């Protein structure tokens, strides 16, 4: 392995040929993106717990170690501080590490290296060093997993300057955003909504095309109300839009996808049209990232608003163990009710 610092076609492409002809799931799109970038940039390495022979507990790195070898796909000792610190060190010295936190609930020990170092290397050294790392985090609830395996903790990272925070909600966006995250010269947290890892398949051409890291997606056009969401809740929100349509309410659905930096323009434009906004997220309500979107609306779209903003979110308590967890997550019913209130109010 040589020390190439810029992307370029690797000398020996691995034998696995991407099957661009079959539809794939969100998690398969992640694997596909990792493989594409590893083939084309040999400074990309993957590291984490069980990412090697085992291919990750969710199989996101399945086959990568077999293809690229143990020097490109590294199992780490069982310590998240270690993973974060090694990742920062490698990134500062010209590699592009893609680290995995096995679950959302285990990433907290990584915060110190992210907040004190990853996002500061460039700033602190006036550009002499920088930190082109990605941290992949299987995120969110609803898979009947044990404690600490169902956290929606994205808000913690959105107040951190210098960071990018993205969360795909479809196979195609998972692919394009992961490529962009790896190529970006600054640190990116890439949250993976594990509840929809295998929700559906779509065709994702393995063409190495990245998506922008600062663009929201309008998934459905509408005139009466804007529903803003991200991650796994895109599913419920789209279902809610269907239900609203049955009642003659035309809902526009926006997948934020790139939380930080936030593409507020797309949201503002939509609200300028609809006059109403419901924000949907899994995380606890208070100081969740929905607060930032509502705040921007209060600052910049106040004259457009025909009704109060509503947030439909997880409650301000912990997501319960699985017997009760679905009662914690925002349901289609709750979204529909909030949207109807907003429409009635205006």
């Amino acid at each position, binding site marked *: 392995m040589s020390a190439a610092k810029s992307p370029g076609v690797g000398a020996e492409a691995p034998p696995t040929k991407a099957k661009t002809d079959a539809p794939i799931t969100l998690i398969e799109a992640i694997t596909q993106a990792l493989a594409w970038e590893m083939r084309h940039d040999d400074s990309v390495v993957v590291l984490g717990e069980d990412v090697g022979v*085992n291919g990750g507990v969710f199989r996101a790195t399945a086959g990568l170690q077999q293809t690229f070898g143990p020097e490109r796909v590294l199992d780490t000792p069982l310590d998240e*501080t270690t993973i974060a610190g090694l990742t920062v060190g490698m990134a500062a010295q010209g590699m592009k590490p893609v680290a995995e936190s096995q679950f959302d609930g*285990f990433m907290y020990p990584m915060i110190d290296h992210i907040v004190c170092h990853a996002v500061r290397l460039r700033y602190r050294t006036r550009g002499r060093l920088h930190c082109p790392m990605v941290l992949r985090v299987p995120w969110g609830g609803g898979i009947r997993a*044990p404690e600490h395996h169902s956290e929606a903790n994205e808000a913690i990272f959105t107040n951190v300057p210098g960071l990018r925070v993205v969360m795909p909600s479809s196979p195609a966006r998972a692919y394009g955003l992961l490529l962009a995250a790896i190529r970006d010269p600054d640190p990116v947290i890439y949250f993976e909504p594990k509840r929809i890892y295998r929700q559906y398949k779509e065709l994702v051409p393995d063409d190495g095309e990245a998506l922008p890291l600062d663009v929201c997606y309008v998934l459905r056009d509408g005139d009466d109300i804007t529903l803003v969401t991200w991650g796994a809740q895109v599913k419920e929100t789209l279902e809610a839009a269907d239900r609203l349509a049955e009642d003659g309410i035309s809902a526009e659905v926006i997948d934020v996808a790139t939380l930080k930096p936030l593409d507020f323009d797309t949201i503002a434009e939509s609200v300028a049209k609809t006059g109403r906004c419901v924000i949907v997220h899994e995380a606890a309500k208070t100081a969740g990232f929905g607060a930032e979107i509502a705040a921007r609306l209060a600052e910049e779209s106040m004259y457009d608003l025909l009704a109060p903003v509503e947030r439909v979110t997880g409650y301000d308590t912990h997501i319960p163990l699985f*017997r009760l967890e679905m009662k*914690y997550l925002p349901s289609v019913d709750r979204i529909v009710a909030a949207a109807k209130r907003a429409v009635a109010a205006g």
Partner: protein
Amino acid sequence: MTVAATFEIEYLQYLGPDGKPTADFPAAFSDPETLLPLFKEMLFVRTFDTKSIALQRTGKLGTYASSLGHEATHIGIGASMRPEDVFAPSYREYGAQFMRGVHPREILMYWGGDERGNDFEVPRHDFSWSVPISTQCLHAAGAALAFKLRKEPRLAVACCGDGGSSKTDFYAALNSAGAYTLPLVLCVINNGWAISVPRSAQTGAKTLAQKGIAGGLPCLQVDGNDLVAVLEGMRRATERARNGEGATVIEFLTYRLHDHTTADDARRYRSEEEVKAAWERDPIPRLRTFLTTKKLWDEQQEKAWAEACGKRVDAEINAYLASKVQPVEAMFDYLYADPPADLLKQRDAAIALEKRA
């Protein structure tokens, strides 16, 4: 050459895999009768484990972490503690917990997705299961510090795995245990694997026991499939702790005979030969052989006891299966002692939503 310091790690084994003594038993355990009730508990855990896995396979339990193969270590640890001591488990030390009074139904409740599984009827002061690896080691150290400051004659015992011994919290626990001379026993249960990562990939250290040297603690390596060695290791460590001499790190060598959890498939990453060889070191047959030789156990007793175990576990399973799901307000009611007004509003809304549904 000037030598600044030297260290030695002792290895304990008294009962070999074939059930024959490999050394004189320590005085405290020289009467084989003392081992019999513990052997029976080992059999009980194995029954519990087998039935729990079956329960999961039929969809009546969530992900479950088996303790297959760890019985001597777990039972030995639990048997070495006093009720007033504090135990800080990771997530599979059922044997130790049974010795302390935790009900099997509580364990099932927890893996069945119900927080009430952590509301142990007994022992009230033990720590709950700890999923974030090795964090419990520091909590045990904190408990030990509390005991020391309050001059209470109690100690804390924490367990973590071979993988867990790489975790910074484990190092922090042994560092503070040494700094404060804490009444603490840090048990590293080396079962060879941390999910798919073998012990050899965790560290370059020859033994995991030697990590204690970093904190100035005495360390022992113990055959964790030999109940006598486990008991003797724990005896030395708890005695030191009770005498105010501080903490000990013990590495228990055992093997994870099952998958990591029911969500794992170990065939992906480890060889059948390795597992087969590990079964040869199974803690149960060796103790059975020994006790049989000593005329303390026979096939008939085994059969009767197996039946008793099966019945008891079935009763516990039934109790678990009969439990009602908590009402929706449970997720609000245990957050704060004094819940804020906004939270109570959310609670009301959630209850109203339930009623409508």
